């Protein structure tokens, strides 16, 4: 029989467990090689940006919770900062520290989830369980502080909702050593594992110039060796008072992106420890924040470092109690834009790992 080579069309997703949400890729394959990719997004589109135009300023915080549902606090922070900047509102010191502590804890939780899922993508079951145990501990602390495990609605324009609970010091003192163990464990079990290295090293490489052209930010960009972190490049909140490093990779392949994230968890732990030492007593919400929020007409652009990269909010106000327009620059979406470049000419089996190493959250890609 005469077999003719034909290009085959392979549909991956939207219900594929490795697409980390509802994301669909149409792969044109030639044998085991991927020739072309067509990504389809929008399955989780909820019109968040449009919804924001119909909600009052204090209600929008709930929508930001649901945008990047793995890093809720970081999302709330960038929105609150945008409105505060527009209003010229000063946030009490203590609130700033509370925000930083929670954001960094959330960064660790998000990266732990990433470590678990990249393990799954590369074929290892156990790291997921370990990572989720660590993430669960953080979420219990979040529940004690804000009342919810994921959709907190805790940050307010001009501060945070209420002060930390009375037993917070004991809770965090119990949590930090365990968390350190969890991070070290997730590092030890995966990062230098031989099988993991062979699956990730030199897979999905991208050069620094190309990464910048695609608009990469966060660990994906730092994996290529570019030292760029909004927390250092343009410090917001009280990040200029902490001493921490920006881990950078070398080759911009999947393993480098993974390594950068793992190192970032150690850095976050450092920041939390310093913040706990420096946190002052006092008010947690400015008295202005409690009134009806009606910023003056104007527009602001505020950016912050999410676990996934640089998130930015462009807020246009016309002086009413609802925004005129709110545009979000989602880090996952920009990182995902390079999927065609990364997947073409790679193997089918690697496609899952490459997608996993970008660490996308579809809630944020589609909004």
């Amino acid at each position: 029989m005469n077999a003719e080579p034909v290009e085959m069309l392979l549909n991956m997703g939207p219900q594929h467990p490795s697409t980390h949400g509802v994301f669909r890729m149409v792969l044109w394959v030639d044998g085991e090689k991927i020739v072309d990719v067509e990504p389809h997004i929008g399955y989780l589109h909820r019109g968040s940006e449009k919804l924001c135009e119909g909600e009052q300023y204090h209600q929008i915080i709930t929508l930001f919770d649901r945008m990047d549902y793995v890093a809720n606090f970081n999302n709330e922070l960038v929105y609150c900062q945008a409105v505060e900047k527009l209003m010229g509102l000063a946030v009490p010191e203590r609130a700033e520290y509370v925000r930083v502590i929670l954001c960094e804890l959330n960064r660790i939780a998000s990266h732990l989830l990433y470590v678990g899922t990249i393990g799954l993508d590369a074929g290892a079951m156990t790291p997921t369980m370990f990572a989720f145990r660590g993430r669960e501990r953080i979420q219990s602390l979040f529940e004690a502080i804000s009342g919810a495990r994921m959709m907190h609605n805790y940050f307010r324009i001009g501060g945070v909702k209420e002060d930390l609970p009375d037993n917070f010091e004991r809770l965090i003192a119990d949590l930090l050593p365990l968390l350190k163990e969890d991070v070290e464990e997730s590092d030890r079990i995966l990062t230098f594992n031989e099988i993991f290295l062979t699956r990730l090293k030199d897979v999905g490489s991208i050069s620094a110039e190309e990464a910048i052209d695609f608009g990469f930010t966060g660990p994906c960009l730092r994996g290529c060796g570019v030292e760029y972190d909004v927390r250092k490049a343009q410090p917001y909140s009280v990040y200029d008072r902490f001493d921490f490093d920006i881990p950078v990779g070398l080759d911009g392949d999947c393993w480098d992106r993974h390594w950068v994230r793992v190192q970032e968890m150690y850095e976050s732990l450092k920041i939390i420890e310093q913040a706990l030492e420096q946190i002052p007593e006092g008010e947690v919400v400015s008295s202005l924040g409690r009134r009806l929020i009606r910023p003056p007409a104007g527009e602001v652009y505020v950016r912050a470092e999410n676990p996934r990269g640089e998130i930015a909010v462009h807020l246009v106000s016309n002086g009413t109690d609802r925004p005129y327009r709110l545009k979000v620059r989602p880090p996952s979406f920009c990182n995902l834009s390079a999927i065609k470049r990364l997947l073409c000419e790679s193997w089918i089996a690697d496609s899952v790992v490459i997608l996993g190493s970008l660490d996308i959250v579809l809630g944020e890609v589609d909004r």
Partner: protein
Amino acid sequence: MLNSVKGMMLTLASTFQGLKKPVTREYPKQPTPVQPRFMGFPALTWDNDVDEPFCTGCMVCIRNCPTQCMSASMMDNPLNEEGKSHRRKIVDYFEINLNRCILCGICVELCNFDAIVMSHEHEMSTYERNGDRVDLPALLDIGKKYQRETAWIPPTVLAKAKKEAEDAAKAAAAESEEPAAAAQEGD
């Protein structure tokens, strides 16, 4: 090879740890305890002193709910006419569609009458689409249960007590300073 063995050892170690002290729970049989600040479904509170709900049906929470999942109406309070209650208006009808509620807690934050709380109720699955539309008596039941379980004190009462304690402390501090100042003057 060596690395794989190391990874295996790590897994084995935590297996033994897990056998000694499990991390997971058998959920429905062993309910997970919730934190004191846990935000479950919203519920209405009951004023035991006057025997009526705290809620006056003022609609502040309803106007500020991000999902518009509540509705209410108010009426003249019969107990007020009898002189038993200080509330001139009282809630007549209240409904929350808990299926729509996103547990944000905005209603609790904005209520001026301590009338609504985020209860610890969170297991309320039903089979019908509208099975979680809860009316006034049911909401009050959830609220009463919450009040009983947590020995609930209205937040405004707490805030007032705290302020009074602070004022008293300040007055005491001022008094203890005054005799000292007086003694100095006497010198």
